[in-house]
């Protein structure tokens, strides 16, 4: 039996790291992830976790330490956010390209300027093309459970791709909720001992991350692509297994809330946007509008087919982005649009860019945006509403 504790998302992630029996943690502090690495240091300090803790001089090296540990055959973890994640960018591509199954928690935060510590998803979204699997957690409980699932997904030999577990800065990272912390024995049954894949093994010498010419590089990239696309079914399977074992699961790649007969569907990721969208949906349903929310749990791999299936029957789609791809629109919205390409009749798609740098997203506001979106009649219009005050 596990135990229930009133803890934040960050502390929940640290519990998951302990339960996963991580061997090496390599970390550098940055708000709002710092409580994760502090709590892990406490677990190691008081003997609850047998792991080596590498204190590094920056996030580039934080991931470097994880990479070294992984190649030596130890399960490795780190956490970061915002500028730290941007600073880690080169290492992210290295870890993904080298197919090292490392898990990284990102407590999403805006990237300056304007400088700010508050929550957003721009930091993780701008790492979209580094080749990492990205899973977004809505609650502290989901953050804990997703970290445990992440190790199992990353270490699946068909996948061997690192996983980024994203939790909204402050709204999830620093908000306390009642969390069920699973039992160690149960986690040990769920998560097998670490399988690092290729290691630096003197008995079997290999050059890892070797140089390669174009044709071989393309084959390498294709395999990388296939692995992350193939991870879709692994993510679903692992979530299902988790559900059978612990009584909690999250819908695999997406969580659809009241979408079955919905004419208006709000697409969201993470805690703040999804929470507001769920409340907005309830309120709209009370006033007679059939609305639903499609929470994307996986952003990479992008669940194109599922998104298409849920959104095709709708008349209106509102996509909330807590990020912006400057010069185009929100990055999530672009992917949703692409998923619906060729669907006829196609719902109208409106992009709502908001919740930036910790700006609140209230259910009332989301409801207002959804109602505004229903007024768009032309499917070819690319409406972008910025949460904006003069």
């Amino acid at each position, binding site marked *: 039996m596990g135990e229930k504790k009133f803890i934040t998302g960050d502390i929940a992630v640290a519990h998951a790291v302990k339960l996963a029996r991580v061997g090496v943690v*390599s970390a550098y502090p940055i708000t709002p992830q710092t409580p994760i690495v502090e709590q892990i240091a406490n677990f190691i300090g008081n003997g609850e976790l047998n792991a080596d803790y590498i204190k590094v001089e920056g996030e580039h090296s934080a991931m470097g330490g994880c990479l*070294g540990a992984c190649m030596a055959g130890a399960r490795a973890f780190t956490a970061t956010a915002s500028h730290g994640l941007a600073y880690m960018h080169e290492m992210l591509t290295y870890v993904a390209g080298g197919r090292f199954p490392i898990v990284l928690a990102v407590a999403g935060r805006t990237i300056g300027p304007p400088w700010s510590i508050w929550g957003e998803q721009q930091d993780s979204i701008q790492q979209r093309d580094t080749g990492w699997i990205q899973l977004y957690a809505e609650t502290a409980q989901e953050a804990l459970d997703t970290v445990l699932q992440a190790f199992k997904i990353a270490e699946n030999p068909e996948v061997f791709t690192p996983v980024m577990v994203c939790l909204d800065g402050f709204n999830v990272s620093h908000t306390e909720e009642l969390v069920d912390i699973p039992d160690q024995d149960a986690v040990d049954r769920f998560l097998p001992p670490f399988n690092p894949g290729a290691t630096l093994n003197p008995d079997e010498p290999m*050059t*890892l*991350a070797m140089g390669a010419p174009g044709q071989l590089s393309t084959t390498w990239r294709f395999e990388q692509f296939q692995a992350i696309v193939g991870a879709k079914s692994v993510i679903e399977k692992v979530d299902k297994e988790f559900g059978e074992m612990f009584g909690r699961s999250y819908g695999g790649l997406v969580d659809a809330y009241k979408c079955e007969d919905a004419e208006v569907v709000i697409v969201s990721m993470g805690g703040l946007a999804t929470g507001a969208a769920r409340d907005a949906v309830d309120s709209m349903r009370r006033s007679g509008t059939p609305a639903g929310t499609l929470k994307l749990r996986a952003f990479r791999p992008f669940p194109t087919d599922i998104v298409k299936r849920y959104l095709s029957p709708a008349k209106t789609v509102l996509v909330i982005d807590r990020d912006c791809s400057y010069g185009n629109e929100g990055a999530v919205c672009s992917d949703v649009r692409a998923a619906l390409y060729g669907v006829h009749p196609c719902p109208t798609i409106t992009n709502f860019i908001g919740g930036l740098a910790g700006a609140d997203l209230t259910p009332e506001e989301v409801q207002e945006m959804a109602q505004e979106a229903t007024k768009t009649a032309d499917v070819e219009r690319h409406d972008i509403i910025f949460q904006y005050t003069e």
Partner: protein
Amino acid sequence: MKIKEIPQEELIAGSMSCAGCSELLATRLALKVLGARTIFIVPAGCMSSVNCYWPQMPFRVPMFVGPFAATGAIVQGASAGFRFRGMKDINVVGLAGDGGTADIGLASLSQAIVGGRKFIYICLDNEAYMNTGTQWSSTTPYGAITTTTPVPEVIQEKEQNKKDIFGIVMAHNIPYAATACPSYPFDYMEKVRKAASVDGPAYIQVLAPCPAGWGYPEERSIEMGRMAVESGMWYLCEYENGQLRFTYTPKKKRPVSEFVSAQGRFRRMKPEHVADLQNRVDKRLARLEAMAAVK
């Protein structure tokens, strides 16, 4: 280490490095001492781009071609990982060039030394970014031409000194640090042996003469290393238990002008620059000797 004790076995063979490459020689000699229970973390540089590019893989030990700035972090991580798994017999070695050490990799090397885990870091110092065609690095010596300093800074009357990485590393209170040159193979191999026996970080900076980058015929690499040490342009030291000492002192000092005139890279230096260089070299050596004299 005596000549009879050097194993016949080659752990690097069939390399496509340039003829006369002393980085390759230094790596080969290090492997003679370290043996097959060794793993290398190699960032961008001649050793990785020439010797870890498919299908030309001359190394018979595990290699990782790492990001430029992260060598120190990755060796720390690998050291921690092997220790976690109870694998104590593996030599974890970072093998980086001077740019990868003195410039882009300095922060992660510094933190790795502070971290105190067991590893060896070998800096193969050929005094410029040779792999990309001889661009200036902070270890490029006074007066040398590179493709990004076609007119060396001293000739433009600006300050230019080779960055003293050995001094910076010593300042960390590292358990073991040394300077070496493959022109003095036994001195170097003994230092590698000592580095491997330290239970903590160890650093060796190897002066690696480069025919292509320095501008001399490829058969003269060993001679260039000897001239460097005999003129005081380089020095063979070690720092152990807080004590600096010279492991070799030339019986007769040669003027730096001999070293300078033997290489194309110094061709823009005028006699007054050579005199200035001689003065700087003398002062640096005097400083090191004074440090070594403090017991």
